């Protein structure tokens, strides 16, 4: 293992509701090295955000982390006191949240919000913090940063709000950055600029990045490794080049086939059906009702996580024979 910064072991986070227990993250084990960018991809509702929140200790009731360990630089974050965890969040791990509108305070000027974050964790004066906030805004490509500091969130376009969130996360230069769909509201040129900024940070400071995204183009261009999630579990893990060239899991293959191709206006090849409800999971492989390669065993036995010689992993019976070992 190269210089591992974060590893999760068998993390299980569930929502205990009247309708039953929904296990949103069901035994996820992943690791990220310093300077590495790991993509987390998967169907809407498969548990990506909840995984990020679990690492940060921000899961709210009725949700609860029921099992697992989150080792960050040698410490199990799940055993820390709320106070110690708050310090880790401010100083060493930052998260860019998926919905900028709900994570920004609507009645506070954005400059104050960024400066507040800087002041809280870096003990700077208001004026220094505001100046740094202005610098961060121009780094994320917002023009006229000094005037924009005085804007309220509703006066900014969707993409500008998203960049304010990014500025807030980056100004603390964290060791680990969890970025949840950081560039969905941005045009491709600014997206490129922001991703380059994040990668520069990874290269210069050795920041590890957990990049949660739907955008396979972004994964292909910026990430080292990728974890493809389905229904709360990691379905496939591996280096990005092999994963695109030769996906191991039929779900990964289906995602890649769903992409629109330039110049081709025929019907897109969506994966038929929808994700199973977390309270009514199918027997056997969770993907089997939608899998084009399903066979008998898939309908009764849940596949374990098979690790192949290449280091790639897949939760699919098709790889049982080639597997070196099975992980839970």
């Amino acid at each position: 293992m190269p210089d591992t910064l974060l590893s999760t072991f068998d993390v299980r986070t569930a929502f205990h509701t009247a309708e039953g227990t929904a296990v949103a993250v069901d035994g996820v084990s992943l690791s990220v090295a310093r300077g590495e960018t790991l993509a987390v991809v998967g169907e809407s509702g498969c548990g990506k955000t909840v995984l990020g929140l679990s690492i940060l200790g921000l899961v709210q009731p009725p949700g609860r982390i029921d099992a697992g360990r989150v080792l960050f630089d040698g410490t199990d974050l799940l055993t820390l006191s709320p106070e110690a965890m708050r310090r880790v969040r401010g100083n060493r791990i930052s998260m860019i949240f998926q919905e900028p509108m709900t994570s920004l305070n609507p009645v506070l000027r954005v400059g104050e919000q960024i400066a507040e974050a800087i002041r809280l964790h870096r003990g700077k004066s208001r004026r220094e913090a505001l100046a740094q906030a202005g610098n961060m805004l121009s780094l994320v490509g917002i023009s006229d940063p000094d005037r924009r500091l005085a804007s309220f969130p509703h006066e900014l376009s969707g993409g500008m709000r998203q960049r304010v969130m990014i500025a807030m996360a980056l100004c603390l230069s964290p060791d680990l950055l969890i970025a949840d769909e950081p560039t969905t509201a941005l045009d491709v040129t600014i997206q490129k600029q922001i991703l380059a900024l994040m990668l520069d940070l990874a290269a210069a400071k050795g920041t590890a990045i957990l990049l949660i995204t739907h955008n396979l183009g972004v994964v292909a261009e910026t990430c080292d490794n990728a974890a493809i999630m389905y229904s709360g579990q990691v379905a496939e893990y591996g280096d990005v080049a092999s994963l695109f060239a030769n996906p191991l899991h039929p779900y990964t293959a289906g995602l890649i086939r769903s992409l629109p191709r330039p110049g081709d206006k025929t019907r897109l090849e969506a994966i038929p059906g929808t994700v199973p409800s977390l309270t009514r999971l199918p027997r056997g492989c969770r993907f089997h009702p939608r899998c084009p390669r399903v066979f008998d065993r898939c309908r009764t036995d849940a596949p374990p996580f098979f690790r192949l010689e290449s280091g790639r992993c897949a939760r699919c019976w098709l790889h049982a024979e080639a597997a070196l070992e099975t992980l839970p």
Partner: protein
Amino acid sequence: MSALIAVQGLSRRYVVRGGVLGTSRRTVTAVDGVDLAVNRGETVGLVGESGCGKSTLARCVAGLERPSAGRVLYDGREMDDPRVRDNLPRLIQMVFQDPFSSLNPRRSVGFSVAEGLWAMGMGDRAARRERVMELLDQVGLLPEHADRYPHQFSGGQRQRVAIARALATNPSLVVCDEPVSALDVSVQAQVINLLCDLKARLGLAYLFISHDLAVVGHISDRTAVMYLGRIMELAPTDTIMDNPAHPYTRALLAAAPIPDPARRQAARTPLAGDAPSLFSPPPGCVFHPRCPEAMPECAVSSPKLLETSPGHFVRCLKETP
């Protein structure tokens, strides 16, 4: 025959506070003199830099905001015409990016879908219920879904609900503001297929905003490229994708991430320079400070949007005779 929607010389200005204390007031022009038509059954894609005014233009077209100058004609009639004003929900509906916040969490999905019918006084209770079932079926949901609440659906299903809701009043145009950007690629493919089917079946027209050029390329008949409140290029989509004439369009296409690690691009920042400021737009061509092909005169004279070949409009001095 007049266009379904004709945007003519539309501008939208906002007054915003400036200065660190927020005491000074300035006017910004978010949309600056846009002309754009959408014909019956046509999909017009709208792409461009974040903050360039796409959503503002969309809200003006949907009648949610008043333009500061210029007008929007609906089938040749002004917004103030009662035949337009009183019928707006039957002409235009909007689908927003965020399927989570655009539905009322306390109302059943059936209620949300029927709300527009109820507001327009269309049909009695039983007829409305029947229409809801028909709509849910059209977007690939089940009748039993009508009695469920938004939190019981996945993101993709909620976006289907939002589309069913938009279709309830049988509009001629649906304005889609980044309708698929929150969805994973498989659900995105399902929603795009659905929009294409509905267009074929019901003759719907779309104004379709997206940052994903592959998606716009797939769904749009024509595409408009905006920069700093202005349309820089407008042409049939294949022309925009294969033969872009404007340097900004070319920069945009070059920046699109390619879902193939074997083709990873070395250059990560294709567009140099700062994003433009609405507070002090550059003189001359607004793109000149960042344009890789800028000439000295670009800093002084501002190009007009000209038709350089039939149906292909470009705003660039290089394309100006």
